């Protein structure tokens, strides 16, 4: 049957089981919008900015594990997606972005609303396509979803010229994808796994360093099983929050620049590190030459480029975390070596416990000003640790990581690699769309929230009941913190005057607004806000001088922590 490119597009989305598309229309995609009109299979949600649309698709993907989809027009619509693409790329999130393009014959002519988005997005996508013929569209869509969601996931962009969408062709969606240049390795090499287990058991001071790859691989169960079988202490990266239950006695919390004292001391004094789906980011290692000086390292990662990139590892294993951990579990579970090993490593665990006891995550409570950490603790208490938490970027993000205990994977959504301010609100909306029954909270900063505040309108339009809690410190707090510590307190351009009245702003958008100005109001205001229907914005006026600790100054070794 002959169909137009636009009809093929919509039918292929339905056949690929896409239930929602976050988008924004324009001239180059007008045929698609015509085909989408009154379509019942694919829901389109109208965002207020294309950046918001990509972050929504991204939040949808992180919360659900399904690929997020976004549709925008050519030129400015396409360029507005770049930050969203780069955000998803850095954090390995499966997203497919479809962009309209000027008609094929005009490409390269500086045509109206033309941008070379394939060229622009090349370094921030896993792969991208320009569709040249209508007959190729369905196949390319199939490939795009396949590439985005397999191996190390990532964003894929598909650029569709207007004439390709208008012309007709036969609908031909292939069943299978065959790309001879793309064959991710899922199965870890058995002998390599055996060597890894041998190395692990030979040590006395082990630590598991778990990252976002555990969540992407849906392998939290396996991680817990292995850790419990051998009593292995586990620290997670920011991207790995929720990969291992925060309340587990073996959990050390986050490591790195703002990691816990126990986690950073454990990594630095360990003799074997089992790195699982983590990429030795510089926020984690601190000064590379001082990173884990006594440790042998085992590294499990599906992407060979992550291995031996920043840190020399002793046993690399290319493969899916889930597969490799299963193989490891098989080799140790119930074996008598496991029991002996738990005995041999008991003293080390004792040492870690005492580090955690002497230097817990903490802050100095104050009567007057509201402490942001207290607010996060109260959110945790109120939601019983069961919310999906999105964050903005800065101090708010670090406190959200430190003072909320994440028990489940896919419950902490944060822009780790790119650190994109303005990520949290749209990501929370996307997560809520994917998980309608869950409570979704965006822990925000007063600066970041203003970068995509327009998406409140989207939340109101579709009655998406996200709860935004602004830790309003009147400043670009994280940058201010660096100025305080390393630039003699010269607060250059980090005080935010003219912050809007967020309560009124929420109301102007048709959302509900609440405010807390005193510590004793916090629990009640949060309770009321979370109980209210629909989207809610809660403005909490926090202590502007508060800082995030521990902190490893940039370029210092992990043990050189500044503490409260």
């Amino acid at each position, binding site marked *: 049957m002959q169909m137009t490119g636009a009809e093929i597009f919509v039918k292929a989305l339905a056949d690929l089981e896409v239930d929602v598309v976050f988008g924004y229309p324009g001239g180059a995609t007008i045929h698609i919008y015509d085909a989408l009109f009154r379509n019942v299979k694919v829901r389109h949600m109208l965002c207020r900015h294309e950046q918001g649309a990509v972050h929504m698709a991204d939040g949808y993907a992180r919360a659900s594990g399904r690929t997020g989809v976004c549709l925008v027009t050519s030129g400015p619509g396409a360029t507005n997606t770049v930050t969203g693409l780069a955000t998803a790329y850095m954090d390995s999130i499966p997203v497919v972005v479809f962009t309209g393009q000027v008609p094929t014959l005009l490409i390269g002519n500086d045509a109206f609303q033309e941008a070379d988005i394939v060229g622009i997005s*090349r370094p921030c996508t896993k792969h991208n396509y320009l569709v040249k013929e209508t007959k190729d569209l369905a196949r390319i869509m199939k490939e795009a979803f396949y590439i985005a969601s397999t191996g190390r996931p990532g964003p894929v962009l598909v650029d569709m010229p207007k004439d390709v969408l208008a012309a007709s062709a036969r609908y031909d969606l292939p069943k299978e994808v065959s790309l001879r*240049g793309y064959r991710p390795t899922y199965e870890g090499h058995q002998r390599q796994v055996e060597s890894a287990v041998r190395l692990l058991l030979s040590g006395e001071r082990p630590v598991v360093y778990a990252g976002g790859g555990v969540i992407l691989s849906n392998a939290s169960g396996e991680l817990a099983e292995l850790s419990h079988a051998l009593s292995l202490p586990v620290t997670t990266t920011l991207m790995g929050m929720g990969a291992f239950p925060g309340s587990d006695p073996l959990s050390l919390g986050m490591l790195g620049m703002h990691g816990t004292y126990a986690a950073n001391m454990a990594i630095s004094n360990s003799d074997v590190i089992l790195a699982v789906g983590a990429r030795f980011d510089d926020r984690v290692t601190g000064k590379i030459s001082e990173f884990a000086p006594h440790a042998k390292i085992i590294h499990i990662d599906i992407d060979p*480029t992550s291995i031996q990139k920043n840190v020399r590892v002793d046993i690399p294993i290319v493969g899916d975390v889930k597969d490799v951990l299963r193989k490891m579990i098989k080799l140790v579970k119930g074996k008598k070596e496991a029991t002996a090993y738990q005995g041999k490593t008991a003293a080390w665990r004792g040492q870690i416990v005492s580090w955690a006891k002497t230097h817990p995550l903490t802050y100095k409570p104050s009567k007057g000003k509201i402490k942001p950490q207290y607010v996060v603790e109260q959110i945790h208490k109120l939601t019983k640790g069961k919310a999906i938490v999105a964050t903005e970027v800065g101090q708010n993000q670090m406190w959200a990581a430190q003072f909320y205990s994440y028990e489940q994977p896919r419950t902490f959504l944060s822009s780790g690699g790119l650190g994109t301010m303005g990520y949290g609100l749209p990501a929370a909306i996307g997560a809520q769309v994917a998980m309608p029954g869950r409570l979704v909270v965006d822990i925000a900063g007063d600066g970041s929230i203003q970068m995509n505040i327009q998406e409140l309108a989207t939340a109101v339009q579709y009655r998406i009941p996200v709860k935004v809690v602004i830790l309003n410190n009147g400043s670009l707090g994280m940058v201010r913190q660096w100025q305080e510590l390393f630039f003699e307190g010269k607060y250059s351009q980090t005080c935010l005057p003219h912050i809007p009245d967020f309560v009124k702003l929420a109301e102007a958008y048709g959302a509900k607004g609440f405010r807390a100005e005193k510590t004793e109001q916090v629990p009640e205001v949060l309770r009321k806000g979370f109980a209210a229907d629909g989207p809610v914005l809660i403005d909490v006026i926090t202590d502007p001088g508060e800082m995030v600790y521990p902190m490893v100054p940039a370029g210092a070794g992990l043990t050189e922590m500044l503490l409260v």
Partner: protein
Amino acid sequence: MRHTISVLVENEFGVLSRVSGLFSGRGFNIESLCVAETMDPQVSRMTIVTSGNDQIVEQILKQLNKLIPVLKVIDFTGVDTVDRELVLVKVNAEGDGKQEVLRLVDIFRARIVDVAPRCYTIEMTGGEGKVTAFLQMLRPMGIREVVRTGKIAISRGM
């Protein structure tokens, strides 16, 4: 250390910019790059000469492999290869110099492919050392222009 890397890629639009973008975007260095179709018209071969320490070269090889249209990556370091480069040189040929140029062309088994009143254009192929030596010898005559293809390589034997 210098490495010669042979990359088989899908012969499709944009693949060259993916490869060159990978180098520029990550601060890797390209000394030369040659591309042409293989026997299979759907596949092209790129021969890239690059340099860097072991860790950098390992990243380059892995990153190349990671590109979707890349089918195969071969590092020729430590492999017995035949490598060649083609160079075209326009050199002054006047008075006594003429004889000297002809002599060098003969010694290096080069060919004169164009003759003008005061200069010759010479074609020469060879390994890196030979090309460099040839250009060195011609320099005193006055080289007007040099065009080099960059290196291509093929493994010896099977």
